[in-house]
């Protein structure tokens, strides 16, 4: 048996435990006396240690073991929670995370012993606890001695014994070997039962021989057992040594071991048969060993998996069944068509049915890909806490809407930009505590992270109650850096000025800190988000705070689009950005600063002639009426002039290939029903 198959579970579980630890330690910092939290931390640390040990990650095990010791002291009331301790524990968690990163990349925990962290942990222990815990003490798992009703727990007594086994036992006894009956109970919370059992077997093979096991080894390897298994073991070692071997495996709840007496009616069969049986057992053993050599796996383990709710899969399954029914319906209709001319209608009905099913199928496949944003944002409270310490500002993070779901691909990408914006708010947005007091603001600065779904988009807002953006300062800085001229600055609206923040190499922080202000900043954030098909907007009020609004599409792969034609070329415009479609008389077009605009029900909307943007040949004759598709980005609107409307369609977005340069107004391509390729217009870049 090979441990690598458990590596994935191990990584997932470790991540979860780390997250729990981070969350709980944060709580503990706020409420040092919360005993529930301490217990929770202790449990998580304990599981971490056990898992690391099982997988053979010694350094990680050692670190978590020491961490567990500390919390065991805290739990027993022998130690109090101090800010220092919390800091050390956080360092410790970071170290574990490093190990985990290493393991994900190379299946190996790396070489870093983190002696300093361990030393710091032990220093805490020694300083605070009256009775210094022996860190080197082994046997980390508490093995409860059986005291109460032993009888019913000795399941090994129920092992059916075949004749040849009886012989083996009596032969062993004749050779002065010990025969033990063993029942092992595994912790009910254990995720890797089979791995534990495997370790027990492995340990026992070193000290003796397992002659019988219930359930059989194969079932145990396949996790086809409850939380206990029983064996008969022949060993030359004393009982305590054997017991210790088993108890040393993590997450073993209980070990029952006794001298095994063969039920009295022993009938000695010819020893030849015994020999034969023993041989086959041995052969099987060696066979098994040969079949599962330790794999030297150096490939990255972390694959991009999604944990899926079983209900979502059920829905998918049902839809696929329906799809098959719809297909069969079509087949039968096409078969009967020759005889019955009127079946065109039923044919159409079947097509409609098929369409309905595929739409639903698409929706539910999309849902399977959806992951709550929680998996990204749950590390932020910890980050804000660290930032608060580092910057010497008091601040808190209030998060809402963590359950909002986004496509997995978006989730993977959104973490860094969000983190950057939070750092930005913490560093640039919030004033120092002293300044806040002077201004009569609450001493503790607040950062809100709010996510919610809005139609086909998900909006994430990062808001702070800090000093806001000083537009004049931004303009001055932009002029100084040569981004704009003074005249341009004069003309600029507040909103346009704030947009300057998103230019490359633009930072208004006077001094460079390692939190933010290195000039790589908001432009990277903006690029990333636009790369995901979203956009960023800023609203700010001087002295009151700043709000960054990030809009992201729910999914990237399939969208609803309006198909339009420009000089006989087909283009797709994503439906979610379209406001209305208007028929405009040519003489309604006005000019503002030599640019074409229309006045649509009181709104002045600039026009973009798609044919010119797309380098199409000019029209021979300007028609009297223009078809204008009004698109929006935030609250800005623009009219796209097209030739003809073709209709709405669900399209699959495909990339255009690697080598061709693509203007940013084209976001991809799609394949139409007749096999023709149509380009997708990114209206955001035209507004």
């Amino acid at each position: 048996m090979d441990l690598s198959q458990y590596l994935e579970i191990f990584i997932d579980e470790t991540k979860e435990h780390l997250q729990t630890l981070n969350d709980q330690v944060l709580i503990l910092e706020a409420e040092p006396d919360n005993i529930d939290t301490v217990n929770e931390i202790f449990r998580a640390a304990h599981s971490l240690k056990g898992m690391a040990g099982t997988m053979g990650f010694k350094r990680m095990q050692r670190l978590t073991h020491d961490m567990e010791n500390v919390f065991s002291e805290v739990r027993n009331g022998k130690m109090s929670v101090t800010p220092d301790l919390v800091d050390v524990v956080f360092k410790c968690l970071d170290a574990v995370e490093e190990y985990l990163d290493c393991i994900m990349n190379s299946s190996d925990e790396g070489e870093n012993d983190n002696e300093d962290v361990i030393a710091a942990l032990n220093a805490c222990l020694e300083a605070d606890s009256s009775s210094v815990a022996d860190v080197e003490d082994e046997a980390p798992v508490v093995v409860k001695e059986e005291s109460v009703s032993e009888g019913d727990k000795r399941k090994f007594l129920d092992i059916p014994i075949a004749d040849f086994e009886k012989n083996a036992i009596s032969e062993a006894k004749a050779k002065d070997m010990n025969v033990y009956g063993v029942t092992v109970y595994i912790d009910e919370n254990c995720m890797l039962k089979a791995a534990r059992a495997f370790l027990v077997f492995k340990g026992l093979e070193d000290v003796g021989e397992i002659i019988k096991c219930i359930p059989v080894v194969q079932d145990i390897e396949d996790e086809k057992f409850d939380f206990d298994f029983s064996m008969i073991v022949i060993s030359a070692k004393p009982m305590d040594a054997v017991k210790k071997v088993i108890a040393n495996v993590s997450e073993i709840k209980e070990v029952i071991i006794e001298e095994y007496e063969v039920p009295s009616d022993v009938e000695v069969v010819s020893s030849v048969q015994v020999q034969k049986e023993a041989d086959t057992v041995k052969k099987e053993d060696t066979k098994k060993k040969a079949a599962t050599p330790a794999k030297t796996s150096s490939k990255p383990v972390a694959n991009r998996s999604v944990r899926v709710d079983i209900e979502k899969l059920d829905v998918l399954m049902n839809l696929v069944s329906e799809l098959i029914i719809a297909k069969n319906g079509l087949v039968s209709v096409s078969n009967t068509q020759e005889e019955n001319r009127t079946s065109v209608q039923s044919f159409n009905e079947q097509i409609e049915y098929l369409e309905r099913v595929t739409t639903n199928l698409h929706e539910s496949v999309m849902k399977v890909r959806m992951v709550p944003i929680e998996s990204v944002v749950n590390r932020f409270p910890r980050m804000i806490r660290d930032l608060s310490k580092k910057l010497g500002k008091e601040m808190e993070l209030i998060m809402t809407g963590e359950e909002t779901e986004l496509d997995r691909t978006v989730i993977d990408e959104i973490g860094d930009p969000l983190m950057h914006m939070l750092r930005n708010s913490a560093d640039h947005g919030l004033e120092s505590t002293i300044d806040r007091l002077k201004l009569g603001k609450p001493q503790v600065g607040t950062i809100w992270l709010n996510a919610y779904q809005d139609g086909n988009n998900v909006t994430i807002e990062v808001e702070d109650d800090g000093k806001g953006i000083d537009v004049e300062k931004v303009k001055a800085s932009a002029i100084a850096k040569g981004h704009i001229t003074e005249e341009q600055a004069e003309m600029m609206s507040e909103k346009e000025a704030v947009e300057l923040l998103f230019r490359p190499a633009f930072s208004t922080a006077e001094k460079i800190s390692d939190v933010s202000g290195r000039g790589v900043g908001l432009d990277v954030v903006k690029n990333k988000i636009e790369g995901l098909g979203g956009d960023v907007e800023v609203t700010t009020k001087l002295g009151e705070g700043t709000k960054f609004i990030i809009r992201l599409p729910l999914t990237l792969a399939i969208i609803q689009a309006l198909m339009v034609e420009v000089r006989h070329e087909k283009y797709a415009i994503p439906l979610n950005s379209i406001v209305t479609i208007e028929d405009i008389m040519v003489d309604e077009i006005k000019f503002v600063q030599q640019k074409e605009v229309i006045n649509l029900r009181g709104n002045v909307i600039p026009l973009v002639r798609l044919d010119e943007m797309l380098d199409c040949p000019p029209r021979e004759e300007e028609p009297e009426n223009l078809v204008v598709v009004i698109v929006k980005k935030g609250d800005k609107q623009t009219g796209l002039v097209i030739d003809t409307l073709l209709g709405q369609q669900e399209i699959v977005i495909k990339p255009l290939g690697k080598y061709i340069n693509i203007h940013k107004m084209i976001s991809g391509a799609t394949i139409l029903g007749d096999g023709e390729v149509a380009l997708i217009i990114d209206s955001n870049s035209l507004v």
Partner: protein
Amino acid sequence: MDEVTVVNGAKQYIVVKLDNEQYGIDISFIDNIVRLQQITRVPKAQYFFEGVINLRGEIIPVMSLRNKFDLDAKDNTNSTRIIIIKPENNAKIGVLVDEVREVVTLEEDSIEKVDYDEQGMNLMGVGKYNDTLISLLNIQGIIQELDD
């Protein structure tokens, strides 16, 4: 293909025609040769790109060697072909040529390196085959130029 390369480093080339000139493309780069199909123009792309095509559900950019080599434009004919080249593992590019002639095997010593390369990195040598000359395209070079 392997058995050919074993012999004195000889390689196979597909010979294509542009006007009256013959060009050779290393066969190991070639994924497919397809007939002309509808090409969707991509605005604002590099001038030598004709557009993109749909090759069995995959969208592939197509460049015209004519445009690339600054030859006069010419209407596509019945013998026009798109050669699908796969310079890297997960990227394909189509090359529009007037005609695909044949597959030839060229020994290394029948290839003359060109140290003058007027057209930048486009050619890697001239091969002599029977009485004709074949300009051998430097696919890597052309692709690299695109990457830059």
